[in-house]
C-alpha cells in the first residue's frame, strides 16, 4: 500500500488538531474533515494516526473528552481544549512559524 503524498507530517498533527479544537469542541471525524477542507484538500489526516494522537493529548492534559450527540444524532466523543492545551497551542504555533521562517530564509539565500 503506498502512502498518500499529503499525509500530515509527523509532529504537525498535534498542532493542527489543537488549532482545529480552538474553534470549539469537535469529534474525531469532524477534525479530519475540517483539516482537509480548510487546507483545500491538500492535508489529509490519517485515521490511524489521529486517534492515538488524540489519546496521547488527552493523557497529557491538553484536551479533554466527553460523549455528546453528533449532527446526525449519533453518540460521538467530543474533544475540547483545556487551559494547558491553549498554552501548548501557542507554543507550537510559535515554534512552527520559527521553523517555516528558517526554512524560507534558507530557500531564499540558496
Amino acid at each position, binding site marked *: 500500500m503506498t502512502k498518500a503524498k499529503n499525509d500530515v507530517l509527523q509532529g504537525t498533527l498535534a498542532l493542527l488538531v489543537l488549532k482545529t479544537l480552538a474553534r470549539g469542541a469537535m*469529534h*474525531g*471525524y469532524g477534525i479530519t*474533515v475540517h483539516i482537509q477542507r480548510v487546507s483545500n484538500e491538500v492535508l489529509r489526516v*490519517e*485515521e*490511524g494516526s489521529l*486517534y*492515538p494522537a488524540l*489519546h*496521547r493529548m488527552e*493523557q497529557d492534559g491538553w484536551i479533554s473528552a466527553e460523549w455528546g450527540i*453528533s449532527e*446526525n444524532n*449519533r*453518540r*460521538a*466523543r467530543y474533544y475540547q481544549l483545556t487551559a494547558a492545551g491553549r498554552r501548548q497551542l501557542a507554543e507550537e504555533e510559535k515554534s512552527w512559524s520559527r521553523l517555516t521562517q528558517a526554512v524560507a530564509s534558507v530557500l531564499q539565500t540558496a
Partner: protein
Amino acid sequence: MSWLKHVKGLLHVSRLERELDEELCAHIEMRAQDNIAKGMTPEEARYDAQRRFGNSTLLKEDARAMDIVGWMETLGQNLRYAGRVLLRNPGFTTAATLTLALGIGANVATFAVVHAVLLNPLPYPHPEQLVRVYDDLRNSNTHDVGMPVPELWDLRDHSGIFQDLTAVWPVDANLTGGEHPERIELLGTSVNYFTMLNAQPQLGRVYVQADAQPGFTMGVVISDGFWRRTFGGDPGVLGKQIRVDGDLYTIIGVMPPGFHHPGRTLNTEVDVWTAAGFNAPPFPQPVQRALRMLPGAMGRLKPGIAVAEAQARLDTFSAQLAHEYPDAYPAAAGWGLRLVPLKKTW
C-alpha cells in the same frame, strides 16, 4: 499514586476498549454517510470508510499503549519508594529477605531434583525408547543375574522389538604407562553403543559397526573429564596409546563434557569406552548359553513400540528360547527378561 488505582486501571481497560470501539464506529458511520452524500453506493461508502482505518485492532493497541507507558513510569516511582522504606526498617528487611531466600532456595532445590529425576529427559534423541534389559531368576527371587552372549545376539536379531542392543560391562581398571598408575573406569560395550545412543564425539570419532572385531576393538573413546585430567585437554590426543590392565589401546575419540553413560557406573563416571564382540579370546570359546558372562544389556526399542508392549513380546520370545534351550534355561529357575526404561535405572 496508589496500587489500587493501577488495579482499577487494569479493570478499566475493557471499558476503555469499548469506548474506543464506539468512537471508531461512530467515525466510520459518519464518513460512510458523507460518502453516500457524495454519490457512492452504500457498500463502497462503508468500504472506503473502513479502509482508511487500516487495522483497527492495531490502532486500539496503539491508543492503549499510551496507558502502559504511564503505568511503567509510576511503577518506577513505587519501586524507589519501596527501596526507601526497606532501608529505613533494616530489621524487617533482613527478616523478609531471609524468608524469601530460604523459600526460593528450597524451591530451587526441590525443582532441581524433580527436574533431574522426572522432567529432564536423557540428552539423547528419543530417550523414551532406551531400556535396560535384566535377566531375572524369578523362582529364586534373584534379579539382574547377567546375560549369556548368545542370548544378546538372539534378542538383537530375532526378538523383533529392538533397533539396537548393546552389552554394558563396567570394569574397574588400572591405567599404567604414565607417571603413576591410575584407577579408571572402563565400560565394555558392543560396537554399536554410540550409534544406539546417537551420541557424537567432540573430537575424533566414535567406534561404529565397521570397527567390529570378534574380540576387543583396539580403538577406544575417552570422556571429556579423563581427557582433561590425564592429557590436559591436548587436541593431539587422537592416536595416542594407553595401557589399560596391561592391554594397549589407541584413542580414537573424545566425548563432549555433557555426555555421560546413561546407566549405572561403578564409582564415578566412565573414563574409557571400549568395544568388544565377546566372541574371541580373551573371551571363552565357544560362546556358551549356560554362562551368564555379560553383566547387562541396554537397548533401543523400535519406534512406536511402547515399553509395555515390548515387554509382552519379550515374554513370548523368552518362553520360546526357554523351550528351545531347556538345558540353559531350566524351568525350575523361572528365568525371565525384564525391561526398565533407562530413566528409572539410576
